């Protein structure tokens, strides 16, 4: 057995028990990278000293395990570009809070992973350094924007990974690549040292082979950071502690499957079947009907979230990317590629005088309706089930020429992302013809990471869709 195919949990256990050595582990990881990275284009940069760093970390919680990190986390000593030519050659003078915590816990960064440039997209095709391919079937997209990190896990090129999500950027690539991805509550994991995209929703989080691996990583990266005022001083539990408690008595609602775009699809069938799995495990499962207006007991259609997200995200992008002027670092603004131009300029428009009330304020008002809707539903249900994506991974090339590609792919996660809720995607089906998986999106209220992990773990154990979980 190649050691790169181990889960994070097994890697830590075997290293600590001295059943395997760091040298053998990193050799297998680097051999796999040498074999597959040419085709899949997952890593943008690698740390050749990773194994030496790892050997000194045996007595830490993560024991020197090899972790893939999305290229929008600032890392001292490793070039950080957010897959954008504007930042080509940028060597950060400071480390992101999350990677600082990861390293302190004994995680070692193997390399930086490809992404949609500036995290603008859901395909990893908008990277200025070429698209990443889906390890499950290289004719298809890995999803995005954390497509490189999800693909690194799917191809066993690391044992754990970090991504970031604004709306779907962890869960959608996890779903398309057949791995597990957790989007934490907004403010649970610090954004400091992460190249900003949409500051009011950006949430760094783990991507792993199993639910337990995500729980382990989250435990080590979450918490208050004095350099990110939106993080909260809530205590960080050991997220694996209650993971095995089961779902008996849990109240579960199924959402969005009666949407005209989903009814009768494989996604509808897989999510409905997942509901039956939870029922058999002792939970109460109901369908939450879709509604075009805010109504008690119903879920507000995700259709409006596309508009809200588009305005909020473009507006925040135009503000955040104003700093890239080529003076302190990077290249000048003529280096922005098409997708970034598109977003910066549309956001400049929606925030401009005379239009800000019409678009930005209205979008933030509709955002309030989604908050009220979820607050009411989480009074009734412990968790909500849906899919992170309306379907399977799309074929390579699918994102080109559509200015709303990402928004349409992510519409099922946009409502919950806009309100700051947590969610986790776990594999729930594989199409035998294409080998492409589907993910189940288990959504919780803010700060309910332990609840969604409990449900995700129970589902993973009760089904055969995740090969690493056995």
């Amino acid at each position, binding site marked *: 057995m190649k050691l790169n195919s181990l889960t994070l949990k097994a890697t830590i256990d075997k290293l600590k028990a001295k059943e395997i050595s760091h040298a053998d582990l990193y050799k297998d990881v680097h051999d796999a990278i040498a074999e597959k990275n040419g085709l899949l284009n997952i890593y943008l940069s690698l740390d050749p000293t990773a194994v030496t760093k790892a050997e000194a970390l045996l007595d830490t919680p993560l024991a020197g395990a090899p972790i893939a990190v999305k290229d929008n986390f600032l890392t001292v000593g490793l070039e950080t570009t957010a897959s954008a030519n504007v930042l080509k050659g940028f*060597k950060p003078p400071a480390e992101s809070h999350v990677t600082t915590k990861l390293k302190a816990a004994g995680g070692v960064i193997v390399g930086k992973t490809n992404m949609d440039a500036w995290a603008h997209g859901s395909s990893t095709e908008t990277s200025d350094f070429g698209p990443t391919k889906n390890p499950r079937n290289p004719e298809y997209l890995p999803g995005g924007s954390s497509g490189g990190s999800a693909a690194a896990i799917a191809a066993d090129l690391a044992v754990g990974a970090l991504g970031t999500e604004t709306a779907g950027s962890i869960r959608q690539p996890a779903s398309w690549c057949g791995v597990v991805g957790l989007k934490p509550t907004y403010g649970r994991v610090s954004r400091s040292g992460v190249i900003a995209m949409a500051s009011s929703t950006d949430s760094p989080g783990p991507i792993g082979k199993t639910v337990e691996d995500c729980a382990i990583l989250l435990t080590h990266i979450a918490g208050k950071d004095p350099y990110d005022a939106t993080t909260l001083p809530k205590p960080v539990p050991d997220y694996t502690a209650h993971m095995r408690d089961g779902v008996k008595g849990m109240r579960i609602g199924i959402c969005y499957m009666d949407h005209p775009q989903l009814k009768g699809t494989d996604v509808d069938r897989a999510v409905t079947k997942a509901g039956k799995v939870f029922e058999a495990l002792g939970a109460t499962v109901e369908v939450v009907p879709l509604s075009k207006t805010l109504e008690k007991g119903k879920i507000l259609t995700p259709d409006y979230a*596309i508009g809200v997200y*588009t*305005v909020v995200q473009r507006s925040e992008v135009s503000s955040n990317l104003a700093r890239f002027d080529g*003076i302190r670092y*990077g290249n000048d603004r003529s280096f922005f590629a098409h997708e970034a131009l598109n977003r910066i300029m549309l956001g400049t428009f929606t925030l*401009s005088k005379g239009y800000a009330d019409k678009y930005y304020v209205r979008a933030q008002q509709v955002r309030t309706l989604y908050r009220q809707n979820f607050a009411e539903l989480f009074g009734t249900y412990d968790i909500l089930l849906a899919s992170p994506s309306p379907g399977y991974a799309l074929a390579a090339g699918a994102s080109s020429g559509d200015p709303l590609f990402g928004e349409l792919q992510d519409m099922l996660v946009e409502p919950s992302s806009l309100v*700051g809720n947590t969610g986790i995607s776990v594999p729930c089906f594989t199409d035998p013809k294409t080998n492409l998986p589907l993910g189940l999106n288990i959504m919780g209220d*803010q700060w309910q990471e332990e609840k969604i992990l409990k449900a995700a773990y129970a589902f993973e154990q009760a089904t055969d869709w995740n090969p690493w979980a056995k």
Partner: protein
Amino acid sequence: MKGIAFSSSDVQKIAKLANIPVTDTLADDLAAGFTKTMAVVDELTKVNVEGVEATNQVTGLENVLREDEIDTQRIFTQEQALANAKRTHNGYFVVDQILED
């Protein structure tokens, strides 16, 4: 299609505000994309938001303050600050002239 129809010159006006050079061919292409995108955003006019407050922050935090003290932990040395700059002069950043004589 509802919403706003963007022209190439609308795009050039926004490009100036965003401080990004845009060729005429690119401006035509972006104009078509903006028109398409804003038609989708226009769907929001169908939602009744009368009396609904705007959401700017989702976790309920207000006025997060800290002491106004210099934090030496996060100060770059002059070398670090200049390390990634393409143009420097005698330990300073070089910037383009913005004022005319």
